[in-house]
């Protein structure tokens, strides 16, 4: 699904923030009307006053409330740009380009037959787009299963929010929360007949999920996080090799069906 809405350059105000040692949930609002945004789409954020950060930073839309023109970003502090963003004071102004990229393919509204069990697998900050996706699936009548993985309990964010829209399953590598191990090892994957998988996280994790999906012959979409310069198809820096050759992950992605990828 490609975005139909025109891309806009909009100013937002940070009105609420929740911070953890390695990340922050940042809630923004704008005085403009938000364009239609689909789960899986992202924004390009301009980071002011960070000399190391020349280019904008791509961040997934974590959640939107179009009625109130609110948009949430979940930011992991990995370098100067994300640290600067996460440190912003309330009422700071932030400029974004949006909406960018394609989106996760949503199924038809739930019926008696057809797709029943959908699993949304997120690793680390890769859980960011899954909240919005889960909400959209819930509105289509599904009860999504969120399978969230991290190194330890501190990496598992937004539990309360996820529980609003579906069932939550957790793995941590150190066993501090949920089952110990990797997401692909969680028992839920053996207990239910999985009809559909959506996945976002570090590349090795997504590749493990993709090979699991292939093994059980399950439909699966992943969201890539290739390095980007522009975010809107102008520079050709963000390419992924697919069965169609090099394609831009910022316009034809970031979401891909695993059958398109050469992994």
């Amino acid at each position, binding site marked *: 699904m490609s975005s139909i809405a025109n891309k806009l350059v909009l100013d937002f105000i940070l009105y609420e923030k929740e911070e953890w040692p390695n990340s922050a949930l940042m809630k923004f609002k704008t005085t403009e009307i938000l364009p239609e945004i689909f789960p899986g789409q992202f924004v390009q954020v301009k980071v002011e006053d960070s000399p190391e950060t*020349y280019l904008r930073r791509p961040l997934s839309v974590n959640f939107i409330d179009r009625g109130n023109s609110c948009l949430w970003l979940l930011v992991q502090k990995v370098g100067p740009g994300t640290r600067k963003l996460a440190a912003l004071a309330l009422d700071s102004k932030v400029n974004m380009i949006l909406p960018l990229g394609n989106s996760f393919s949503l199924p038809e509204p739930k019926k008696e037959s057809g797709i029943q069990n959908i699993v949304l697998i997120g690793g680390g900050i890769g859980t960011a787009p899954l909240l919005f996706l889960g909400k959209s699936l819930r509105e289509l009548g599904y009860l999504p299963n969120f399978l969230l993985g991290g190194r330890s309990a501190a990496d598992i964010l937004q539990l309360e929010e996820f529980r609003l829209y579906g069932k939550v399953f957790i793995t941590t590598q150190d066993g501090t929360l949920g089952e110990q191990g990797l997401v692909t090892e969680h028992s839920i994957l053996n207990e239910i007949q999985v009809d559909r998988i959506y996945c976002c996280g570090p590349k090795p994790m997504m590749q493990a999920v993709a090979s699991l999906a292939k093994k059980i012959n399950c439909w699966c979409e992943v969201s890539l996080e290739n390095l980007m310069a522009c975010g809107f198809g102008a520079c050709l820096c963000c390419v992924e090799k697919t069965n169609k050759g090099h394609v831009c992950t910022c316009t034809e992605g970031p979401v891909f069906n695993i059958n398109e990828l050469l992994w």
Partner: protein
Amino acid sequence: MVDLSVQLKALRLKNPVMTASGTFGYGEEYLDFMDLSRIGGIIVKGTTIRPREGNDYPRMAETASGMLNAVGLQNKGVNYFVKNIYPRICDFDTNVLVNVSGSTVEDYVQAAEIIQELDKIPGIELNVSCPNVKEGGMAFGVSAKALCQVVKEVRAVYRKHLMLKLSPNVTDITVLAKTAEEQGADSLSLINTLLGMAIDAEKQRPKLSTITGGLSGPCVKPVALRMVWQTYKAVKIPVVGMGGISNTADAIEFMLAGASAIQVGTANFIDPVVSVTIAEGIEDYCQRHGLKSASELTGALRLD
């Protein structure tokens, strides 16, 4: 009223602002953000005679006030451009120039001949300066002998505006500039990206798949400005300046140093409407300085 139009030989631009090849796609990528008729011209993506897959990922590394790229001229080839892209963009109300690249002189000549047939394309920008492809590109731009041959042979077949894009990866850019002028180039654009490199200290590996790549953005501006100035003094044909231009003041500086027009490149990624902002800014600048036309700025650097 300020007359913002500038002439590059017979090619008239409604204002001095163009967008640089490889940073502006085919213009279509910017239609949501801006009205293309507000700028003097756009230079579309590097086009080659045959399709090119480009280099492997990763192709980009951010640097202090700039970026390195190693896209490697990914494009679907000139015939695909003619059939599929040209019909979509030919009605843009601005000058659309095609940036042409090749591995052999024959490649350049053939591509130029094909593009010549397109009514709505008033000129080409010959890219003899791409640092990101192994089998040529920059080789033509750093040797006066090779440059002489490619310009001469393209000029022999191409009758519209022939802009030649110079590489900064040379000891004396004026030697190349004069060669291009002698062989009949109508204008010179500069600079292309500066050959650079980035390393990930933790991983002890290069950040680009090609190890080296082309540096652009504000960090190259002083070098670009110096080269525009040197070139302006060395040739009589118009010079189109670029390299790190991000705002009106940058654009004015390039014009004062001798540029008749300017191109905005990497800055488009950060602010997709910056080219329009600069065009408006130039008008405002001229008004404030009592200039009747933007072309009065070219080479107006005061040295007294």
